[in-house]
């Protein structure tokens, strides 16, 4: 279980994360949604201990240190691989540092996406780079896989493949936290949706609960956001009403 309790993050005076409390049990595929700047990346970076934050983040009860950091992997649209190295060189590097690295999964995924093993990553197309980034996150042997907009730049067919691969390859005890703008596309593969707005969690619902309510994910997201924008338009109306008197 990955638990966040009252996590706050400030960049100077700007509050990027506001009192985040979230529990991610094993085996869930969770979609993390929100506008740009809502705090999705900041949330993931806090889990990975890339920066300081206040509050508590624990993995199976323990704080996240070098002892258990290998249980979390990360794929980002910024790409975290070494562009001079080949795919196989990455495999060697990962095997050295992550004892649970799965070579079997690596070979299968490289094969599925038809990626070259011995050429530098720099020579790959954007779509292939995204694919490789995801491959490494999936093969590290992590229990919690965090993906920050991993499909930026892939065409829709590529993305469909991605989703199928994710579903086919994830074990029941592996957790995926996936942040993306492509709400409709991922609404079938996720089991839970967490909504972030201006650093706060404004929604957290399982797809089962969504189904029961008869709403689509898009409806739910619009609703939670409309609530906020209603306040704004009502306030403006009140103002105008006052002015016209």
């Amino acid at each position: 279980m990955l638990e966040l309790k009252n996590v706050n993050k400030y960049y100077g005076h700007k509050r990027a994360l506001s009192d985040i409390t979230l529990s991610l049990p094993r085996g869930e595929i969770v979609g993390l949604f929100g506008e740009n700047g809502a705090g999705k990346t900041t949330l993931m970076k806090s889990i990975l201990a890339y920066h300081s934050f206040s509050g508590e983040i624990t993995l199976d009860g323990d704080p996240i240190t070098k002892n258990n950091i290998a249980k979390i992997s990360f794929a980002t649209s910024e790409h975290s691989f070494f562009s001079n190295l080949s795919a196989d060189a990455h495999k060697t590097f990962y095997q050295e540092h992550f004892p649970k690295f799965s070579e079997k999964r690596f070979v299968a995924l490289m094969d599925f996406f038809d990626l070259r093993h011995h050429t530098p990553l720099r020579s790959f197309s954007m779509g292939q780079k995204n694919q490789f980034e995801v491959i490494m996150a999936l093969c590290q042997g992590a229990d919690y896989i965090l993906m920050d907009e991993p499909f930026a730049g892939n065409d829709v067919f590529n993305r469909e493949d991605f989703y199928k691969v994710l579903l086919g390859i994830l074990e029941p005890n592996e957790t995926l936290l996936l942040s993306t703008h492509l709400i409709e596309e991922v609404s079938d593969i996720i089991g839970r949706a967490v909504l972030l707005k201006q650093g706060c969690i404004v929604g957290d619902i399982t797809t089962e609960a969504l189904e029961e309510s008869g709403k689509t994910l898009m409806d739910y997201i619009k609703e939670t956001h409309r609530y906020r924008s209603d306040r704004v338009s009502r306030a403006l109306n009140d103002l105008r009403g006052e002015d016209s008197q």
Partner: protein
Amino acid sequence: MRHTKPFLTEETKEHLRGYLSPPGMSLSSEAGLFATGIGAAFVYNLTYLSRYLEAYNALFETDTHTRVRVLRDGAVMPPFYTLFDNAWAGFLLLAVLVFVFVPFHYSFYHRETKSIYVMKRLPNRYLLPTQCLSFSVLCAIISLLCAAAVLLVSFLIYWLATPDACLSGGFFSQLFL
């Protein structure tokens, strides 16, 4: 035909490189710069030799009658440290300058891709600082060793080439700077 195993196999070299610099970063340009620096420091060291030769020649005079070079009366060689002076400054400066490679190594993880994200989440907390620092440290050590070597060689030249009569004091007093 028997193939003897080379001392440094490709594998070993790769392994060492893995500690000296970020993955995929070539050290050739930095090594070249360092080699140039060492060369320059050696050239600067030649100032000692010129000072020594000057002092050495000052010990002698040419007899006007016999046209033979003879030792002047009461000629004394200046103490070693005055002649050596800062001849090793090049190496000492280089030992400090090589640390400019450190931020350069660190910035590598932010160029093209953000491989810093992988480095920061490795269970091995020492790999990132090692890859940033160790090449500079290695170069600094080599510089200092070169400095020590030129000091030794310079002193040996002083000790062996100078006529015994001109040496003032004992071995260790010569060496004290």
